[in-house]
């Protein structure tokens, strides 16, 4: 049986991708909220335990007292530019911890971690096109 430490969960969906029996399901309200649900499983399989990036899962002996379904919900953090939710707080915290501080700023000194991937591309295109308009004058 799988035990979930809901305080450690990042809300990343790795376990639900990897579960061979579809005991772990997910739901995402685009741009707002995501939910992960672990149905009580009797298998002695620990693939999800092995692949959890946060080590939030553990294989424990079967117990009648555990509820049939464990659920964790996360509000998505809004993008600093477009305001649309794009990641859980826990995932962004993990990024801030794993990437060296000097890489967390772009060439203009702006921190990009709180910006969604779509807006990161828009900003990059904007910067590049400014350079080009400059050079078209010559």
């Amino acid at each position, binding site marked *: 049986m799988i035990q979930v430490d809901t305080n450690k969960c*990042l809300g*990343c*969906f*790795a376990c639900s*991708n*990897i579960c061979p029996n579809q005991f772990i399901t997910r739901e995402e309200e685009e741009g707002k909220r995501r939910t992960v649900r672990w149905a009580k499983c009797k298998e002695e399989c620990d693939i999800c335990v092995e*692949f959890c*990036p946060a080590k939030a899962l553990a294989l424990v002996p079967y117990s009648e007292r555990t509820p049939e379904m464990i659920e964790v919900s996360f509000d998505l953090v809004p993008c600093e530019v477009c305001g649309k939710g794009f*990641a859980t707080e826990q*995932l*962004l915290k*993990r*990024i801030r911890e*794993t*990437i*060296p501080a000097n*890489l967390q700023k*772009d060439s203009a000194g702006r921190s*990009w*971690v709180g910006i*969604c*991937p*779509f*807006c*990161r*591309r*828009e900003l*990059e*295109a*904007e910067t*590049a*096109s400014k*350079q*080009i*308009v400059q*050079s*078209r*004058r*010559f």
Partner: protein
Amino acid sequence: MMRVYVDINRCIGCRSCEVACKRVHGGKGHVNVHITEDRASVPLFCHHCEEAACTMACYSGALAKDGERTSFSLDKCTGCGLCRLACPFGVVWTDKLAHKCDLCAPNETPTCVLTCPAEALSNDYEVALKRARARAGRATILGGKR
């Protein structure tokens, strides 16, 4: 394996590279042409960074540096989406599992480079260097006059 150089001055925004990339990668493209107002079009894709943040965020070893290339192996990916959030340029995607530019390995020349009708994409360092020098030369001769 050479990286791809982009000359935005030449890009005509036709999105041929996007289509070509999707064609050779089973419908999942890794190039995005962004059109900024009416001024320019910019093809965006993996920079294959030397210090690649995506490889630092990836805990399963699916993303790794392989010489100049930032390589991705699908069989190690769990679809956690950390790489998507770790890429400063937003050019790692996760549709359940991650996908990104692989420079069309093991082919010598990436398909986007072969396809680009405007020669905005190139994997020849000498060409990129020549163009940059020509631009700098023009700027010097004209003395910054408009």
